[in-house]
């Protein structure tokens, strides 16, 4: 049998990371060894049957091929319960799940665009590559930006980190996409760019449009409610442009932005983003 995707992970570190985020480091060697940037895990946050479903979180880092790091915000009951988990607790984790980001080709310049709490998988992605890259971090306000620790990692890795907040409380005022558009339009090496975005659907739709208009290839990491994370329940489907649906947990979470049917109305409120 191939390496299993079901793990009992020990919490080796769990702390507030600032700006309302928690940082949790799990010892799960079997999982860490298989993980690639853009993949995610399903974490059981309760041993009881309420809440019953595991919660999906993007992998933010892999350390010493033994540990995985996650960042999350408390947005509802599941994350509130997770926040009470103590060091040394053992959690059931499935992963790594999903396809992950396609490795950037040689000579390309990755532009990583994170909205709200969409940064964790992009952080891992940034840390995993040697390409010169640019990062764009957007949030509603300063308090919703990634924690300083994460921004610091970004700065070390990127040529430049552009920050935007809707209210101007940090970085430039406006949407992250405004900054991205200005950047793209100010540069003449546009053909080397590849965009990787993760954040609220509305933001990714805007990024996708921007990229399409300029002929830049763009990948987006989608979110949907999930039950199994394994591709069996068909619960996490998103509409694609060729008609029909694709599973975020299996064919995704990373899709070519041009494959997604952005017109499809979605009720899912992304409380924790933006």
């Amino acid at each position, binding site marked *: 049998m191939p*390496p299993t995707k*079901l793990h009992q992970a020990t919490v080796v570190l769990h702390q507030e990371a600032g700006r309302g985020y928690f940082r949790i480091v799990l010892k799960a060697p079997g999982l860490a060894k298989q993980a690639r940037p853009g993949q995610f895990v399903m974490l059981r946050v309760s041993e009881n*049957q309420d809440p019953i479903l595991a919660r999906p979180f993007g992998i933010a880092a892999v350390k010493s091929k033994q540990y995985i790091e996650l960042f999350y915000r408390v947005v509802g009951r599941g994350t509130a319960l997770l926040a009470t988990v103590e060091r040394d607790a053992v959690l059931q984790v499935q992963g790594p799940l999903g396809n992950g980001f396609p490795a950037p080709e040689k000579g390309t310049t990755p532009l990583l665009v994170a909205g709200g709490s969409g940064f964790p998988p992009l952080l891992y992605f940034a840390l995993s590559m040697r390409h010169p890259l640019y990062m764009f971090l957007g949030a509603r306000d300063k308090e919703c930006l990634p924690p300083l620790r994460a921004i610091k990692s970004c700065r070390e890795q990127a040529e430049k980190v552009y920050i935007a907040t809707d209210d101007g409380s940090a970085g430039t005022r406006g949407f992250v996409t405004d900054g991205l558009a200005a950047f793209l339009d100010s540069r003449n090496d546009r053909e080397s760019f590849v965009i990787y975005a993760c954040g609220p659907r509305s933001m990714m739709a805007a990024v996708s449009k921007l990229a399409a208009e300029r002929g830049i290839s763009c990948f987006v990491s989608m979110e949907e*409610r999930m039950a199994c994370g394994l591709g*069996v*329940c*068909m619960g996490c489907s998103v509409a694609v442009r060729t008609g029909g649906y694709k599973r975020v947990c299996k064919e995704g979470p990373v899709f070519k932005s041009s494959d997604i049917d952005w017109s499809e109305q979605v009720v899912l409120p992304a409380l924790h983003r933006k």
Partner: protein
Amino acid sequence: MRSAELKKGIPAKASKCVTSPDLSVNVAGIKMKNPVMTASGTFGYGEEFKDIIDLNRLGGIIVKGVSARPIKGNPPPRIWETPAGMLNAIGLENPGVDVFINEKLPILRSYDTAVIVNIFGYSLEEYVAVTERLDGIPGIAGLEVNISCPNVKAGGIVFGTNVKAASELLTALRKATKLPLIAKLSPNVTDITEFARAAEGSGCDGLSLINTLLGMAIDVRCRKPRLANVTGGLSGPAIKPVAVRMVWQVARAVKLPIIGMGGIMTPEDALEFILAGATAIAVGTGNFINPRATLDIADGLASHLKREGIPSVRDLIGQVIVA
């Protein structure tokens, strides 16, 4: 650790020592090494789970519902978590019977487990078409008929909630195949035993119960249903008491063997269904919560038999003691 009161209920044979208990069962003419199966729509076509558990250890796999033509499914959101359960409105998305036969079945065939194909259609003709297509294909142990579909041709009346429509459907399918035929009953009915008797009368070989309870949830802030489809099927531990009750009622009403399901997560849950009258059980939503649930249950059943000195799991079928 059990008290004297507890022991009273347990028959005399409990003292015998059982080293290798017999878990094998025969449901609807399908022989299985143990009574633990996977419920349709919660285990895909098996392959998704091959990285997690050894599929050879399963009694059987009931695959995701298959129809004559591909079905696109419902728009998202398709699922919503509820207390001790979940709602789903997947809309029976599937690639159609041809893709199933050509791409999915060959993989399933390579495992040593009974493959039961769950089928459905939106008219009697569609049900017959998928049945005929599967008849005679090697590697299929039996068909499970999901009768919880609206008959679009006949004005949308749901086969599973109308005894006459269910009888007609099952009688037609009985003619269309020699494969063991298992009717999967809907719990959204006043008297489930009527449907069990109708299935028996139509020549079915077994029954699966229960399918999901029809439910709904609303996002009170945006005032919209949590599911794009408005209503969906409730599954998981929340519905277990309803499922156990229905298995018990049906077991007393008909002779057909029963595959029990609805909220099964642990060996104790499985035993409840078996004692209520199920010959085999299927794990549905439980696969999402604990992807090893099926194997944990098979192991737990074996331990239970050993501990209690019961030679075979078949000795427990329907053995609930009711005054």
